[in-house]
């Protein structure tokens, strides 16, 4: 997964508000809110970065070791993929 490029689904509407991201699904009316760390990852996925590129940035920003950052980020991404908010990019 670390080298896989992700993208944000075009079936959601989202707004970053006060450091948090409010996400509204179009097809199932679900709503999710990402905290500041989730929003940090969201912005980088939106910028086309891979997890391999994102994880060192998380370590630097939140002063966390790489193993913890990798584990937590992958768990988060898995959940976003399962909710079809993130998709695996073909690019």
């Amino acid at each position: 997964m670390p080298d896989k490029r992700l993208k944000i689904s075009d079936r959601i509407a989202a707004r970053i508000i006060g450091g948090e991201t409010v996400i509204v699904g179009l097809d199932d009316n679900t709503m999710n809110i990402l905290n500041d760390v989730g929003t940090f990852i969201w912005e980088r996925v939106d910028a086309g970065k891979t997890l391999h590129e994102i994880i060192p940035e998380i370590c630097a920003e939140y002063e966390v070791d790489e193993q913890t950052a990798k584990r937590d980020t992958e768990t988060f991404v898995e959940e976003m993929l399962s909710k079809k908010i993130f998709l695996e990019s073909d690019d």
Partner: protein
Amino acid sequence: MGWRNFEPFPMILQMALDSVVLNIGDLPTSFLFSQLGAPDELARHYRNFLIESPKPEAVKKSEPRPLGSGPSDPALRGPLANAHGTEFFHALSPLWHFQVSTAPEMVPPEGLTSHDVRIEFEGRELKLFRADFEANIDLATCHGTLRYTGLIPSFENFLRALYSVRLLGVEGLLVHACSIEYEGAAHLFAGTSGAGKSTIARLSGARILTDEISVVRRDGDQFYLYGTPFWGELRGGGELVRFPLRTVNFLHKDDATFAKSVGLAEGIRKLLRCTLFFSTHLEWRHQLLMIAEAICALHRCQDLHFQQGKEFLRLLDAGQAIKN
């Protein structure tokens, strides 16, 4: 003295027999019926929201904004821009017209269950479907057709679907919420079924704008709550009035009465959870999100825990202590 005894709604007789104009949230809609007398029941049901057919120059402009301009406050504007949505919002007219027919036995569109609403927008045509109504309107002319079962619930389902879209163009929402006017300001109490909307309306002893579906919309720099004909348990008739919105409350029945302030993102999530919206159109969802953001950013949002009694009213005053 006799005629008043025989006709409880004399105003209705003074209006055209085959048409009604309803004004909900300052957005009037005209319904022209193919059968004489057909609208009498509707006119009685919506008597407090009937207006005389407005002359074009007399209708208050709704100040439609292109989709993407977002809330009026520049600080709350988003970067969206979309030609499809822009076309829709430019097409908003102060008055929409529907030619109405009834069909007691309606066949629901394929793939639609009895409670589903489908809203489609193609070119300049807006289509609205449910098992008990179908409607379309040309947004260039603002003339369209409506077919419904002839029963009030069917017509009301149509109105809710229609206004969920129309309000979007004037920075407004239809919300599952009770609204009251208390000391000159309006307060929204949002909650799903069973949350206590009718209970809090009853407890308030205040002027009730609705106990079920609220209309909130911006006019100029201010959001207002409007009286609506959409009622729940209390079955009130509603009033054609509006008051400036002061607080947004999310209801929780409890054995104590207190309020906890809600953060912006959480407030938006809670408000949207109670918002009636049926379209899956991406740009409209973005607009919905921005309207909710504006409402929550400009007003106090709080989780309101309440028990029997009027004690909760003190938590609606500005400056009252709120648990954080």
